[in-house]
Structure formats: structure tokens, C-alpha cells
């Protein structure tokens, strides 16, 4: 125990850890008849992991993550695991967007060890961190290395407090191939103060969560202000889990949802450690109850501005006994009355595909739709492409409405074979009611034969493009952040009144590379042996043999005559 350290104080004088836990569930019936459930668990702890402060007493905050923060000088950590693709056209915007597979981005502290600019130092820490997280979340994050890590210059700004925006301290990586399943859910649930024993977390049963159209779980750690004046900071841990249940698969086409049907559980209590435990049901599209009917009814209503839209929610407070009624169990039921399944027109959405045929070249097309009728807005496009697709950056074109659209900012970092990926960031202005197309050609590299995956004919993944934007809002944003707000509406900090922050991920790409026939070594050995034996052999023969004009061999009679002459001692003929 290092008593000489000035930071060390007498344990008796340490105040009780000021920590707080909130949980909430938002249920939003979607246009398509599907249902979206979004869980958020937030732990806020007024403590300081930094500056060599050894924190050893944990209450609500998970110790495993706390140790990670202090050991690796992490300032902000965002990690998400997603199975499936969020269908913006059918479901609208999610509360927390995430790309298919695993995504990890971390802002590191400008700490004592890495005081001077030393990229190697941050890189080393990043490598260790991904391996540790890989163990904590039981995922293949250890596959994150320099070939899929980038340092975006503009797309990923810190979401917590702090004015350090030097992107040398930022690392971003995705693993589009990562498959998310129960082995990732269990460690995620263990981070919760109540585990999956009480509160909303009892609903998180894997057999139902993975019987859905979309599943995404995430952990976000960031420093936040404790109060309005921001005198003290505290650490915030948000664990989010988003899931969309499919009308056709899980409800057998019946337009009726209940907690039991979705999660095969009902709620009986809040987490005893939670200061707030609420369920919100989005009833904005249903003011008079003509679309669907919610039972049991609740008198509590709440309004919140989320994603540029003022929404109305029915609120069920689980800390109130009355919520559970006489049966001491809450089984919310949503019954649809009318059916409609029209496509939405979200203000911003994007898609991406590979065009062309053959295994030599190709073209990546990214389409960004601005569906706002009269406002244009800028978007930041981030593309991280593995090195084995060699981008021809001179073929980069950005067109909107058939005209060239010159990006106002381009940050391009070319790839290095087997070392780092391409990084392309652009600030593009999207004209109103338009499609902007970004195309860039690439050449497919021929890998070394040990570099192929075990299933090379499946193809190689290229992670999602990230499109970050401030989208013009329909309603004026409420900036009074001291007001009590639901958690789902307060994730992205937003300063501007008339716009809101949206991040859209495109689908990942699956690209086929030229793949050798792996039984080829055998053929090559056979062929080589034949070529060496026949070709080289005869050539070698020709080169080394000395040619002489052969004396025509004498006839038999002459030979006999010569023998006789030899015996006689006279010279031969």
C-alpha cells in the first residue's frame, strides 16, 4: 500500500459513493406492425477514476468496467453489438443507432503516460483494451488490430464533457462479421446492479430476444456534469438494449403485443436499487386511441422531444405499487385496431452497394437521401475500407440531382497493405429532396494464400459507412436540460435549437475477392515436377552436352581388315 501518495486519504473520511441507478423501457409500436423495445440502464457515479486515484469501493458501478477506465485512461468508451440491420425505411430512426456486428470507439485521456504525442502509446493501450473488452464481453474484439482501426477526424466527437478533440486520442473500429448471441448477452446483463434478478432486466431472456428482427446491445461510458453548473463531474454508464419484434414471425400475424408475448415474462417489481424505473409507451400516433389500444391504461403522460419530433408517451412508474394493480404483475398489452404498412420517408437515410462484375475491379456506391422538402443540410460521411480493396481515389465522385456536388471537406488517409485501412471522411451538403450518390472505384487485391479466411468464397466484409448529421428539426428543441427528461431523449448532446443529431449506418458490404482454388498446391506440385522434368531436363541436356561430328563407323569388312592389319603390325586403313 503506497502511503506516500498525496492522493491517498484516510478511508474513514471517504464520503459514501454518490451513485444513482435508473432503468427504463420504451416501447414504440411501429408503422409496419412490428414493435420496438428499447431498454436503457443508467448508472451515474460521482467519482474520479483518473489521476492515479485508486478506486476500490464499488457499489452500483460494475467493477470490471471501472478498472478498465482507470487502467487504460479511457475518457469515453462506446461499444455496441448488433445482430441485424436497422430498417430505417420501415421503422424510422432508432434511439441509439449501431452498425451490424460490433463497433467500438474510444477516446483516451491525455494521460501522464502518454503526455507527449506518442501514437505508439495510444496504439498499445488500444490493443490491450480491445483484448480486455474481448474477455469482458465474450466477443472477438481481439480481432481489432491496425488493419481495421481508424482515427476519424470529424465524425466521432466526444459525447461527454471535455474539450479535448484531438483525434489522435480517438480510435474507431468495427467488426461487421461479429455474430451476437447469448454469450454476449450474459456478460452484458451481469454489469447491471440487479443482474437479471429484478426490475426491467427480468424481461431480458435470450430465447425471446434472439427471436426477433433486430437485436442490439451497447455500453456507453462517458464523463457527464453532475449538475447544471457543471461544477463536478461524474461517470455515466449507459447500458442500452434495442430489440424489434417481428409481427409475422413472433406474433403469427396477429396484431397484438404484450410484455408476456414479447419477453415471455411479466413485471412484478422495479429493481430495488433503482431510483427510477419506468416504462414509456409511444402513443404519439395514437392520440385518440384509434390505431391501437393499450391496457392497462395509465393516467400518466409525458412529452419529450426525441429525434426532432415531439412525442407523447404513456408512463408506467414501476416504483409505484399501484402500477402492478391487484394481480401484482404488470403485463402491458397493445392491440392494433387498424392495419397499415406504408414505407416511411425518414429525413435522412442511406444505402450502399457494390456494382460491377468480374473479380478485378468494382465500384462502391453510397446513396444518401435527404427527404426534407425544402432544407438542405450537411452530412459527414465516414468510410473505412479494408486495404485489400484498393480504392482509386481519383475516381471519387459526388453527385446530387445529376450535378457534381463538391464536398467542402475531405479527409483521406490511404491504406497501407496489411497495415491500415483506407479512411475517407467527407462533409457533403445534401440538397433538399434529393439523392446524393458517392461512387469510388476499387481494385480487388490478391491476398497471400494464408491471409484468406477459412471460408474465402463467402466473401470479405466491408464495414458500414457512418453518416453523421445535424438534421433540421420539426419542433424547436427544448434546451433546458435541468428538466427531468426520459433517458432515451438525452443521449446526444444538442446545442442548436432547430436541428437534431442523427447518425445513420449503411449496410455492410460483402465483396468477393479473387480466390484461388485451394487444391491448387497439389496441381502446382504436379505441374512443376513435370515442367522441371521435361522442359528443364532437355534444356539442361542441350546446354551441357558438347556436340561433335561423329565419324561414320566403318563397315564390317573394313573393321575385320583393320584387325588383321593390326595383328600384322601395319597401320590401319
Amino acid at each position, binding site marked *: 500500500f503506497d502511503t506516500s501518495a498525496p492522493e491517498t486519504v484516510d478511508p474513514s473520511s471517504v464520503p459514501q459513493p454518490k451513485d444513482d441507478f435508473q432503468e427504463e423501457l420504451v416501447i414504440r409500436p411501429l408503422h409496419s406492425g412490428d414493435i420496438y423495445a428499447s431498454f436503457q440502464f443508467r448508472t451515474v457515479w460521482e467519482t474520479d477514476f483518473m489521476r492515479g486515484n485508486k478506486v476500490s469501493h464499488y457499489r452500483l458501478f460494475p467493477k470490471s468496467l471501472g478498472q478498465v477506465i482507470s487502467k487504460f485512461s479511457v475518457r469515453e468508451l462506446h461499444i455496441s453489438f448488433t445482430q441485424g*440491420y436497422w430498417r430505417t425505411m420501415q421503422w424510422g430512426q432508432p434511439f441509439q443507432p449501431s452498425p451490424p456486428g460490433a463497433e467500438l470507439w474510444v477516446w483516451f485521456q491525455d494521460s501522464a503516460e502518454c503526455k507527449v504525442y506518442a501514437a505508439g502509446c495510444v496504439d498499445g493501450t488500444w490493443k490491450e483494451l480491445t483484448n480486455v473488452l474481448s474477455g469482458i464481453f465474450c466477443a472477438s474484439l481481439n480481432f481489432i488490430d491496425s488493419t481495421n482501426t481508424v482515427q476519424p477526424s470529424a465524425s466521432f466527437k466526444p459525447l461527454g464533457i471535455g474539450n479535448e478533440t484531438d483525434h489522435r486520442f480517438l480510435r474507431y473500429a468495427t467488426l461487421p462479421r461479429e455474430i451476437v448471441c447469448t454469450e454476449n448477452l450474459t456478460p452484458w446483463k451481469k454489469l447491471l446492479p440487479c443482474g437479471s434478478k429484478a426490475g426491467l432486466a427480468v424481461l431480458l431472456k435470450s430465447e425471446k430476444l434472439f*427471436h426477433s428482427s433486430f437485436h442490439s446491445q451497447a455500453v456507453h461510458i462517458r464523463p457527464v456534469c453532475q449538475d447544471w453548473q457543471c461544477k463536478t463531474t461524474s461517470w455515466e454508464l449507459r447500458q442500452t438494449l434495442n430489440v424489434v419484434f417481428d409481427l*409475422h414471425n413472433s406474433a403469427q400475424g396477429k396484431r397484438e403485443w404484450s410484455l408476456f408475448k414479447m419477453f415471455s415474462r411479466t413485471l412484478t417489481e422495479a429493481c430495488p436499487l433503482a431510483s427510477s424505473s419506468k416504462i414509456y409507451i409511444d402513443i404519439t400516433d395514437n392520440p385518440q386511441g384509434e390505431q391501437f389500444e393499450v391496457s392497462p391504461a395509465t393516467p400518466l403522460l409525458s412529452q419529450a422531444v426525441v429525434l426532432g419530433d415531439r412525442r407523447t408517451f404513456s408512463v408506467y412508474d414501476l416504483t409505484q405499487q399501484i402500477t402492478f394493480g391487484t394481480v401484482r404483475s404488470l403485463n402491458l398489452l397493445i392491440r392494433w385496431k387498424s392495419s397499415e*404498412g406504408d414505407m416511411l420517408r425518414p429525413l435522412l437515410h442511406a444505402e450502399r452497394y457494390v456494382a460491377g462484375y468480374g473479380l478485378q475491379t468494382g465500384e462502391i456506391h453510397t446513396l444518401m437521401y435527404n427527404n426534407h422538402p425544402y432544407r438542405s443540410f450537411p452530412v459527414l460521411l465516414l468510410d473505412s475500407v479494408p486495404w485489400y480493396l484498393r480504392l482509386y481515389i481519383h475516381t471519387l465522385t459526388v453527385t446530387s440531382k445529376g450535378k457534381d456536388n463538391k464536398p467542402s471537406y475531405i479527409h483521406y488517409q490511404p491504406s497501407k497493405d496489411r497495415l491500415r485501412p483506407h479512411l475517407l471522411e467527407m462533409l457533403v451538403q445534401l440538397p433538399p429532396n434529393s439523392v446524393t450518390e458517392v461512387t469510388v472505384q476499387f481494385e480487388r487485391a490478391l491476398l497471400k494464400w494464408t491471409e484468406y479466411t477459412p471460408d474465402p468464397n463467402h466473401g470479405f466484409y466491408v464495414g458500414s459507412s457512418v453518416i453523421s448529421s445535424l438534421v433540421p428539426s420539426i419542433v424547436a428543441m427544448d434546451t433546458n436540460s435541468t428538466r427531468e427528461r426520459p433517458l432515451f431523449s438525452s443521449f446526444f448532446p444538442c446545442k442548436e435549437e432547430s436541428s437534431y443529431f442523427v447518425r445513420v449506418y449503411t*449496410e455492410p458490404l*460483402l465483396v468477393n475477392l479473387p480466390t484461388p482454388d485451394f487444391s491448387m498446391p497439389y496441381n502446382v506440385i504436379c505441374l512443376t515436377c513435370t515442367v522441371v522434368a521435361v522442359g528443364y531436363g532437355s534444356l539442361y541436356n*542441350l546446354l551441357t552436352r558438347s*556436340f561433335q561430328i561423329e565419324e561414320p563407323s566403318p563397315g564390317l569388312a573394313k573393321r575385320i581388315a583393320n584387325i588383321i592389319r593390326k595383328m600384322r603390325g601395319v597401320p590401319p586403313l
Partner: protein
Amino acid sequence: MGLLSDPNRRRALISLLTRLNSPICVVCYMAGVAWFMGLAFEPFTLRTYMSENAMGSTMVEERFPAGERALTTGREFSAHKKKAGGMPVDWLVKTMQARGLEVFTQRFSRKLPFPDENKERYMVKGTNVYGILRAPRAPRTEALVLSAPCTPGDSNNQAVGLLLGLAQYFRNQIYWAKDIIFLVNEHDLIGMQACITFSPDSCRGGSIQAALSLELSSDVITSMDLVLEGLNGQLPNLDLANLFYAFCQKIGVLCTIQGKLQRNDWDSVSGYSHSVQTMMLMVMKQASGRPWGDHGLFLRYHIEAASIKGINSFRQYKTDVTTIGRLLEGMYRKLNNLLERLHQSYFFYLMPSLSHFVSIGYYMPAFGLLAVILLLRALDLWVQLATPPPRTEDGITDKEQVSSPGVLSVLTPLVISHLTGVALYTLPIQFQEMAVEQFPVSETEAVVLTAIGVYTAGLALPHNTHRLLSGEGTEQGWRVLKLVAVLYLAVLLGCTALINFSLGFILALTLVPVAAFVTPHVPKVLSAFILVILSPACTLLFSVFFFQELQELPVSFQEGWLLYLSVISQGILDHFLYGSLVYPLIALLVYPCWLLFWNILFWK
């Protein structure tokens, strides 16, 4: 090993090859043809087997129940089609949406280079409707396609009905790992091309792993026919055919290829001729380079695809739509299980029946035996040109001593015949308008007749060539020209056979004898007649009759001639619409090469 370094033995070998050149060539030709015919003999071929592990061991159950409902949907579709006078876009969109698909429409328009008289179209405008079944928890990276064409008239309604029925059934299943695109395409291949060629609103669902096109025009069928031949003679991976065959066997549906059932009496003459017929049909179709079904354009994108046609003939044993639905369900479930693209099995094969195949290793020798004739002739000519070989110490003949017949005498015919080829390639399309104004013909006729005209005009070439040539052609001159032409033909046919074996083989069958025997000293009239008979255009004419014969639909000469004209126009259209390579190959390379031999015959 000492064979090449020993001048005596080398000389002996060469003299053997030159002395016995003609008999060896004849034997090679016979052996090549015999080898090829032997390919259809069942004991010489391999049984098909599933190579792909992901599709082999996994059992799937087929439970599709709703055949009757699919037929009702098909009738509804038919009614709406009649009412809309074409593709009932709105109805399709609504129906697909009701089945829980993400629905998109794609408008396309295309102007053909000249009117297509077979299908009566010139300015094509249409709409594709496709619904995407999004696989739960899949990141949109992989997709399968099931398509049914919306054709004018009363055909294919059942296919669309079954497609919608399957869409509804598939939507309620949880096991999908790949998106499934249900496509109803208008204007067959033109619509299909609009759908596959990537543009902002084309059919997209990640990388497409496999595609099936369904054609079904009756409520019950007797058999299912599998069509494999795609653009430029490309074939899907053999595992796709195996998959179809395996499920037909499992479910008990009669299945055919080239419309031919397979027979068990391979040892009888009729059984053998049956499999020869089946294989020859495949060879003819592949050689044509046309897409023989709506799947044909997928193959270019490395998407394994096939067309499945329901056939209703007069057999007793009928299969209902529910069973076909189960067949497709089984196939899609297995394709859904694929971890990698279909790549384990063969891409180059011929099928004498659905259960047997001939792989590239077995059929290539047939072509090789024909191609070796060209090399032997070339060797012969080379030796002739080099005689008398001045014997030097190390046995190397000195080429400088042979009087070279001048570059011009070789280059001029080469250039002129290729210019004729370029004319054959460009003029028909260029001059159609002028021809229509001048002569009482339609555009299509103008194109075809111009092509034939240019082709025939090329026959006057030797006279024009000689006018350009300075001086008389020498004996050495034609030998050098023939050497060049023979080697040119060998390379040309070799490359063609690698890309499209059938085309290469058929061309070799006719052009190799020409190349082998033609000299200026053979009887002119008879040889000219044989040369014309064996020219590419006549080969095509005979192929048309032969193909009709194989299909057991013999035609009179008059009908055959009309068919021939339409085949030419289709070939040109296929090139300009889909990028088929047969027309440019014939016009720009094969025909000029043949002209060189024509030139040699009339060498003065």
C-alpha cells in the same frame, strides 16, 4: 529426353510427321469426333453428386401447403393483368405488401437497335416489381432471388401466383439467413437486365448468392424442365443442377433437361441416341451464346442461376402446384444454408442426362484432337518452308537463307479480310435506315440482309486483294499466309473453346478440315463449294436445321430459311442488348480467318 537434342532422331520424327501428316490428321479428326460422340455413352460419364457440404448433409422438411391458394392468386393476377393491359403494378405492390415484404418498383425503358420481330418490340418500357423478404437479424449482405416473368397473354400466371404464395409462406418462417428477393419482371430479359445492372433503383439485397427463374403456365404439370445455359454459354455451378435433381427425386417430380427425360436403357441403341440427342441439344444451345431463360444474365455476375419450367404434356402422372411449391421451398432452404457461394462443383460441364455429366477434363480431349490437326499442318508448312534445310553443325536451320515472300503479301490479305469483318460487324446496324428508305424491307430484314450481303461480298475478296498486291503471289507466299492463318485459327479456336466449349467445338468441326486441305492447287470449283459449305454462315444454317431436328420439330427449307434469318437478327440483338459475344466473334475474328483460307484457294 534426348529426342530434341539428337538431330538425327529429331529429323526422323519430323520426317515421320511430314510424311504421314495427312493420315495422322484424318485419324485425329476421326478420333476427335468419336471421342465426342463417346461422351454421351453412359459408362464413360460420371454420375452427378452433391459437392457442397452445406447442402448435402442437412435435411430439410418441405411443408408448403398453399398450392390452391397460390393458383387463386394466379387467377387474380391474370384478371388484373388483363384489366391493366400489362403488368398490374399497383395490385402486385399491394399484394406483396400484404404479405409482409418490403416492396419496390423499378421503371425501365430501352430502345432496341432495330425492331425485334419475334417479340414485336422496339421501344421497350416496363416496370419490375420486387418484394424483399428481410431475413431476421441478418445484416443485408446476402440474398437469394426467385423470379417469375410477367408475360403478355395467358401464360405464366400460375408462376406469379406460386411466387406470391411462397412469399407469404416464407415470410412466416424464422430460419432465413439470407434476404429473399421475389421479383416479377416485365419484358423478360430486358427487365431482368434492368434489375441486375446496378443503378440507383435496381434490385438490391446485398450480394446475391443464387437465383431461380420460374415459368409455369398450367395448374398441373407433368414434369419440370431445368434450363442452365446462360449468356455466352455460361453455366451455373453443377451443384445447382444437382440440387434440383435431388429434390425432384425426393419429392417425386418428373424432371427433365433439354425437355428430355432420362432413360435407363443406356446399353440399347435408342437409349444411347437419346442421350446423344440430349447432349447435342445442350451443345447447340450453349454454342448459340444466347441466354435460354430469364436466369441467363445472372451468370455474368457470378450468381448461380437457372430457370425452371413447368411442362404439361399428355402423360398420366400429374403434379400439382403444392408439390412444386414444396420443391422450391426445399431448394431455397438448402440455398439458405449455404455458408459460401456455390463453388465446390464444376462450372464447365455437359449433361447427357440430368443424372450424368461430362466434366471439362473429359470433353476437352475431343477438342484437343481437332486442334492438334492445325498444329500438325503448321509444322508441315514450317518444314516445307524451311526445306531444303541447310545442315549446320548443331542442326539449327538458318531462316535467313529462305527467301521471304515479303511482308505485304501476307499483311494485305490479313488487313483486308479483317476490314471486311469490321464491315460485317458495323454496316448492318449503320445502314438499316438507308436500306429501309431504298428498298421495300423492314428494319429487321434490312439488318439481316445487309449482314448476308456484306458476308457474300467478302467472297469477292481474293480478286481485290490481288489488285493491291504488287506482283504475282509466289509459292512461298501462300505457304506463309497459310501458316499464319492456321496458327491464327488454332489460337482463335483454342480461346473460344476455353470460354464456350460448344461453340469452339462446332467451329473446329467445320473450319479445321478447311484449314487442313485448302491449297491453291486443289480443284477450284469443287473446293470453293466445300469451302462455302463449311463457312461459318452455312454452319449456322445447318445448325438451325439440326437443332430443329434434335427438338423433333423438323422444318421445311422455307421455314428453316426464315428461322435462319431470325436467328441472325436475334444474334445481333443479343449482342447489342446483353453483350453476347458470338456475333462479334464470328464477324470480327472467325469470318476474316475463314476469308484467309478462301484467299489461299484463289492464290495466283
